[in-house]
């Protein structure tokens, strides 16, 4: 026999045609997706274009029309001049408050979450599973249930109505999430590595610091993103525990928007909302799949 057999001399059966890849089904598919994409994008589109329209245009025209005389005035207003509560300082100071509140809270809660996760997975702890269950449950609780006692605690610590107080609150409640993220990650960490490190004499901190932490960079990123987004976007704690000098941005925004006196400056509202949304949106766009991992880790496996 030769290396490659030759085909039979004649083709007894007439060949069939290659079907086209663009079928009606595919067209429908894209159409539906595009429709939904439009619906999803619409609010932010409205928000942006209306934030650069002068007020009379908004009142005279309709929300979806492009601005005829675009102006950045509403943005300036929202940022530095708008009336928030009793002061006309715009959102700037509150933007700062949010930052001051978020950054320490994120860093500390991530660090502690990592430590907790590490301890829970690498050491046999009596009732380790129960602790896991308790932590898991704790991230689901309605925060309303802790408002009152927390207010009292902050009062006793002298932190009521301060940014420091907010940092404390967010850190505490961020630890729960962090613990979960890290626990799940470390539970899947290859045990052989840990065992061999232990045999080489690594102790508690060395194991954590030199082996597990460096390997957990992706989950650290995920955690930071998730915490940042949640804490920045929080409203309830902000509204309950801050006073007008320490409002986080969300509370300030709500104040701006819900003021029932005077003329409703829609464009300023939209500008303000967009300013408030920018940091988390940027984080979202930049972090892409890490954001998704955070979402998923916060929910389930399998």
């Amino acid at each position, binding site marked *: *026999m*030769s*290396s*490659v*057999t*030759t*085909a*039979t001399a004649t*083709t*007894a*059966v*007439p*060949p*069939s*045609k*290659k*079907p086209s890849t663009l079928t009606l089904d595919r067209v429908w598919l894209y159409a539906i997706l595009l429709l939904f994409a439009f619906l999803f994008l619409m609010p932010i589109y409205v928000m942006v274009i209306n934030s650069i329209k002068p007020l009379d245009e908004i009142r005279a025209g309709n929300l979806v029309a492009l601005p005829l005389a675009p102006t950045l005035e509403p943005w300036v207003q929202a940022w530095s001049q708008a009336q928030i509560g009793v002061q006309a300082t715009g959102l700037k100071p509150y933007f700062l408050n949010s930052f001051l509140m978020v950054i320490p809270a994120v860093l500390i809660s991530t660090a502690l979450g990592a430590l907790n996760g590490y301890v829970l997975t690498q050491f046999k702890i009596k009732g380790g599973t129960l602790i896991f269950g308790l932590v898991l449950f704790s991230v689901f609780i309605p925060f309303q249930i802790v408002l009152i006692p927390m207010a009292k605690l902050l009062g006793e610590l002298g932190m009521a109505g301060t940014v420091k107080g907010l940092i404390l609150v967010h850190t505490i409640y961020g630890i729960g999430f962090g613990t979960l993220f890290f626990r799940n990650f470390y539970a899947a960490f290859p045990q052989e590595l840990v065992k061999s490190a232990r045999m080489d004499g690594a102790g508690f901190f060395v194991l954590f610091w030199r082996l597990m932490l460096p390997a957990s960079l992706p989950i650290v990123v995920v955690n930071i993103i998730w915490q940042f987004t949640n804490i920045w976007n929080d409203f309830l704690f902000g509204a309950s525990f801050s006073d007008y000098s320490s409002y986080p941005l969300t509370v300030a925004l709500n104040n701006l928007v819900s003021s029932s006196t005077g003329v409703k400056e829609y464009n300023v509202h939209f500008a303000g909302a967009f300013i408030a949304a920018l940091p988390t949106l940027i984080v979202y766009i930049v972090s892409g799949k890490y954001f998704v991992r955070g979402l998923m880790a916060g929910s389930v496996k399998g």
Partner: protein
Amino acid sequence: MAALTIQNVSKQFGATKVLHQISLDLADGEFLVLVGPSGCGKSTLMNIVAGLEEPSTGQVTLGARDITYLPPDERDVAMVFQSYALYPNMTVAQNIAFPLEMRKVPKADRVAAVKKVSGMLQIDHLLDRKPRALSGGQRQRVAIGRALARSPSLFLFDEPLSNLDAKLRVDMRAELKKLHMRTGVTTIYVTHDQVEAMTLGTRIAVLKDGLIQQLATPMELYERPSNLFVAEFIGSPSINTADATVDASGTVVLNGVSTGVTIDTAHAGKPVIFGIRPEDLIVVDDGAIDATVTLLEPTGAESYILVDTAFGEFTLRMPGPGDFNLGDRMKLSFAPSKVHVFDKATQLRLNT
């Protein structure tokens, strides 16, 4: 029951050509094995026949129908996957009946078919279980049952035994062969294991890099491999090879010693590769090759003996425990008719 023809089928993924101009004919009822190393294209070819992928060029016909672009369900082909691919949310009975359900076979007939097939495969006591409650071997039978229930014109097996442990694999191999003898359905079987290929196929197609290296019966492949790759792929332990030359008269010369094998004088002076299978090396007092024993591998029924020669390491196959010890010296010989000669450059067989 139908004859399958694959004509000039090729497959390209972007710039990578996975299959080059494959053509082969299967007679009705034949058991063809596609064998080759990983990446040779055998699974791709299988997918094309099943309808899970489209060929870039070429035609596939089954019986009188051109099935090249038909969707899988219209081809009357059944497939058993390497991972069995059972539906996890259905019971064994539902799994087996599923293809019949899809073809709107009435319930009574479905039940009968399930009963018949499960009896044949001895899984009738597992009908109410879900796949996760089954062992590997049981799952595999369910997968076969699901394919059988349809009485298709063509059976496709994609490395079905690879995930089983060694002993089970040997048992299942025999069962598959018996099944084929009983049902007589035309079958294509893909594997990377050459022992499976040899024992199961009526014919074997050896593939490498998307090309059929040789298409022949098992014994032909073994005794007359058409190129070096086939010679080395089929047969365990592998064929022994050594560099050799061809003198003016066309005789193959090994290290100055004539092998007694003559080929076309057109190859005179060209380097060739001399090949001899382990069982064809004979220990004689006046043999032409000097050898020293370096390793003994007894397997029970026979032994593989590694020896050092002037041309490198050779393996011998001897029945029983073999009568040699490490360091023994011996002389080897062989019958010229058992020699395989390959051109060193093209790797093609040169002697008939």
